[in-house]
């Protein structure tokens, strides 16, 4: 496990950790296992049990780019206030993988609990005297629950998976998770024909639970108590939420090329479409095409959007690079298409399984020449659903590529969410002229600004009218889409595209502002960072720093963000990229002294941002009397000297 910034690290401000931790319902667990060892089911069972007990919870896979054999971790958090962002300081560490056990143990905060296998070659109990260590006889317990079966050739393989359920039982005992809730969770995990496997797993969880009840303390300060905070809530990852958004947004052509962490957007979309958009005869109201590469994926989506489909593709940073030429053309030829980017850490292959917000500026400007694209940035899984629906409508309305920027942390991890609401607006199709419209209107010019909003009329292929056809091209074109290299024609068209963006600025999702409007300190964040913001603001409030909070949900930046900056003396812009990308855009929108109010907080080590990564730099800065301070998110010394946007520089 790479060491991650922790709220309790002495090197950090320390002040943020002063608040005594609650004994109940504030729990952070880390499980270290081996990739491919089947621990995912076990981790989901813990989450399901906590959810069933009404306790807000969420989980993250922290894994290397690997299929089988390398270390992997599951981070699980339960919190009465619903704070479910990344925490670097687990209360309980479960070590199933000896390769990482020692290092993980060294990272624990004082007072934490470490559960490990008693068959590790090294004795972990002497490594830390400020951590409570429990050696658990996992092998003995799992064989009790699942006795050797000589008739089953895959017994050893199954045993390797079932053993994970033993730690579920041990953790349940330590944390007072109801064993009945655990059993219900296992049954859900092994439905129908898998019931026999379910029974074996229940026996394994019980074995762990009963052993721990008999051999471990039951009054440890990391327990949960039944709450009523999850009743109507679901646990879902952002990619699946986005896939649901595609289905209910009426996507009709989805193209894609596999890339972590976006593949499941396309795979989930396809599975849902097959289930819910296929008629009794097996005919489908959609087409899903796995392309040969991202160039073809965007090309197909552009072709489909041009031909009248609600077209979408999903990718991540490297795929976005390959799509650039088509996006530039789509912007200029004005073709509706939605591109979901589940951001990972780049450049190049970078850290393909780690999170980042490093693409946002690029998405906004993607293309060649002058391009400005609409980018929607969901901050919750519910917004992944809503904003993908919105993106499909906006692409049609504005006839342009529209991006939806998720990040790996939001997209691939499980988050608690209110149930998604059915869209209220009917499906938007924009200014598409039918044969009847053309007959009535008597004329059609593809790139003429008829309404003064920069948005022109279009027709789709197959429209049977002598006026319908036009020629789409990336080359310079006049209002009738005829080829033109005349300077005034070119400039007029680019100016109209700028006007179209201004229309969009007022119609895309507005920023969400909350908190104390009179606070001196304002915070701006977006996307997956939102998960850490409420907790960070709570820490700051405890330290006497009142805050207001503005969450950007779309680019171009709405005017409301400038109003927010005007209302507060110092405004921290929190981002998960090195170069303060949104702050760069924001500075362009602000005038004079307002620019000097901005202070950048960046976090870009590949781990999801934690509340401490926001609160600590704010506290540091707030106590420094004067001087434009360079504040970076890298508090481990590895970011020293990295070019970071200076406040007001």
């Amino acid at each position: 496990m790479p060491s991650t910034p922790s709220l309790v690290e002495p090197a950090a401000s320390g002040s943020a950790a002063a608040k005594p931790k609650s004994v109940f319902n504030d729990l952070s667990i880390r499980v270290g296992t081996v990739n491919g060892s089947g621990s995912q089911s076990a981790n989901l069972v813990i989450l399901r049990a906590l959810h069933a007990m009404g306790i807000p919870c969420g989980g993250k896979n922290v894994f290397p780019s690997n299929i089988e054999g390398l270390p992997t971790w599951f981070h699980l958090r339960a919190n009465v206030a619903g704070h479910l962002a990344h925490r670097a300081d687990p209360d309980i560490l479960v070590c199933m993988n000896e390769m990482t056990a020692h290092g993980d143990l060294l990272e624990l905060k004082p007072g934490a609990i470490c559960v490990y296998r008693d068959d590790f070659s090294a004795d972990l109990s002497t490594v830390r005297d400020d951590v409570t260590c429990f050696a658990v006889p996992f092998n003995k317990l799992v064989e009790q629950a699942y006795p050797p079966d000589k008739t089953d050739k895959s017994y050893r393989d199954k045993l390797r998976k079932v053993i994970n359920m033993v730690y579920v039982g041990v953790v349940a005992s330590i944390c007072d998770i109801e064993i009945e809730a655990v059993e219900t969770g296992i049954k859900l995990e092994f439905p129908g024909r898998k019931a026999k496997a379910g029974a074996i797993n229940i026996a394994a969880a019980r074995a762990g639970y009963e052993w721990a009840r008999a051999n471990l303390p039951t009054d440890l300060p990391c327990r949960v108590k039944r709450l009523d905070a999850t009743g109507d809530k679901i646990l879902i990852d952002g990619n699946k939420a986005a896939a649901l958004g595609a289905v209910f947004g009426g996507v009709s052509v989805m193209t894609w090329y596999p890339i972590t962490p976006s593949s499941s957007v396309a795979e989930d979309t396809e599975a849902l479409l097959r289930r819910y958009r296929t008629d009794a005869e097996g005919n489908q109201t959609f087409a899903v095409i796995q392309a040969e590469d991202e160039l073809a994926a965007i090309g197909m989506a552009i072709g489909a959007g041009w031909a009248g489909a609600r077209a979408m593709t999903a990718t991540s940073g490297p795929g976005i690079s390959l799509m650039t030429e088509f996006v530039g053309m789509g912007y200029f030829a004005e073709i509706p298409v939605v591109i979901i980017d589940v951001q990972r850490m780049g450049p190049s292959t970078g850290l393909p399984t780690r999170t980042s917000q490093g693409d946002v500026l690029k998405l906004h400007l993607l293309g060649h020449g002058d391009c400005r694209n609409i980018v929607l940035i969901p901050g919750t899984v519910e917004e992944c659903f809503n904003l993908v629906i919105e993106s499909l409508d906006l692409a049609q309305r504005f006839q342009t590529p529209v991006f939806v920027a998720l990040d790996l942390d939001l997209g691939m991890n499980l988050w608690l969410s209110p149930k998604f609401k059915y869209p209220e607006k009917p499906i938007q199709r924009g200014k598409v002229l039918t044969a009847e419209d053309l007959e009535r209107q008597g004329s059609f010019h593809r790139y003429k600004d008829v309404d003064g909003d920069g948005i022109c009329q279009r027709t789709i292929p197959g429209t049977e009218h002598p006026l319908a056809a036009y020629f789409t091209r990336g080359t310079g074109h006049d209002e009738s889409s005829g080829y033109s290299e005349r300077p005034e024609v070119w400039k007029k068209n680019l100016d109209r595209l700028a006007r179209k963006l201004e229309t969009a600025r007022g119609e895309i999702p507005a920023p969400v502002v909350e908190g104390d409007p009179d606070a001196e300190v304002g915070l701006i964040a977006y996307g997956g960072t939102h998960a850490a913001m409420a907790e960070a603001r709570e820490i700051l409030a405890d330290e006497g720093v009142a805050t207001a909070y503005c969450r950007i949900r779309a680019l171009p930046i709405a005017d409301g963000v400038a109003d927010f900056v005007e209302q507060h003396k110092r405004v921290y812009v929190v981002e998960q990229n090195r170069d303060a990308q949104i702050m760069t855009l924001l500075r362009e929108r602000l005038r004079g002294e307002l620019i000097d109010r901005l202070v950048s907080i960046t976090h870009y080590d590949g781990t999801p941002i934690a509340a401490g990564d926001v609160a600590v730099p704010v506290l540091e800065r707030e106590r420094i009397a004067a001087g434009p301070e360079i504040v970076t998110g890298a508090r481990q010394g590895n970011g020293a000297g990295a070019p970071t946007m200076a406040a007001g520089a």
Partner: protein
Amino acid sequence: MAVQTDIQVESAGRTLSLPVSAFQGLPSTLCKGCGHNSITSYLIEAAKSTGLNPYKTVKLSGIGCSSKTPAYFLQASHGFNALHGRMPSVATGAVAANRQLVCIGVSGDGDTANIGLGQFKHACRRNTPMVYIIENNGCYGLTKGQFSATADLNARLRRPTGETNPTLPLDLCAEAIIAGATFVARSFSGDKKQLVPLIKAALAHKGTAVLDILSPCVTFNDFQGSTKSWVWAREHEEQLQDVGFYVRRLPEIEVEQQPGETTNVQLHDGSWITLRALKHKDHDIASRDSALRVIAAGRDSGEFLTGLLYLDNAGVDFVSSLRPVETPLSMLPDEALRPSAETLAEIMESI
């Protein structure tokens, strides 16, 4: 008189009467004598004589001289001059969005064999329903005559320094056949008699119909010694078959060629193509192996073999394999696109 020259086209049971101008386009801006202009005129002729509905036709292209030509025909059709080498993907998306569209893709040798080889072969692999015309002149015209991947080995650049091409050319018909295209033909832009029927047959084919048409570049690759020149092609052209095309319903399908005899092949729309093997009596157009042998033999002997090289009428085209509903996806009503509130509630319950 306009009335006399109107073209009748069928559309969903109705007959539309369209002026000839619907099939024509803007004046060509290519060089005088360019083979591409001939191909454009044959395309117009084939479209008119088969009653192709231009409203239900799309014409797409990549980048290059050849890719400019969709502006010169079928002005009543939507056109898309896409990116260099990326026309196949745009075409794939368009036909997926609307299964009723007839798709004509026009490309060149640089656009297909160099930058676009991947997309070309994947379109063939999928059997994407489209006519894929390659106007092949072995060089880049728009950027002043550089070699393309179909340029002959040891071909010379037409410039004072006269560099020779050190690499072997790709044979795009062979690439298409290997990749899985179901209609592959080669022709010559100067041979109207052969090309018009081949274009008609390609338009009637359901699946990827590749036409690799030698189309000499009068400016950069039309000099003695170039196998992409007018003189060379006229001297070396060797027809595989006499190709005749006529719309007539016949009772049985016959794709087996008898040496020296006429072979009738029924196309997907019910029309027939007539073939006569002239020199290569043992060539069976239903056999990939035979087609590849013919191509290889022609290459060895320096012959320019033209005609239909390969035809598979039984393959399922890509769009049909996606099993879309009858209504084009681009025209689906809201209720077909968005599942009900009850469905969402059911999904929320199941998570």
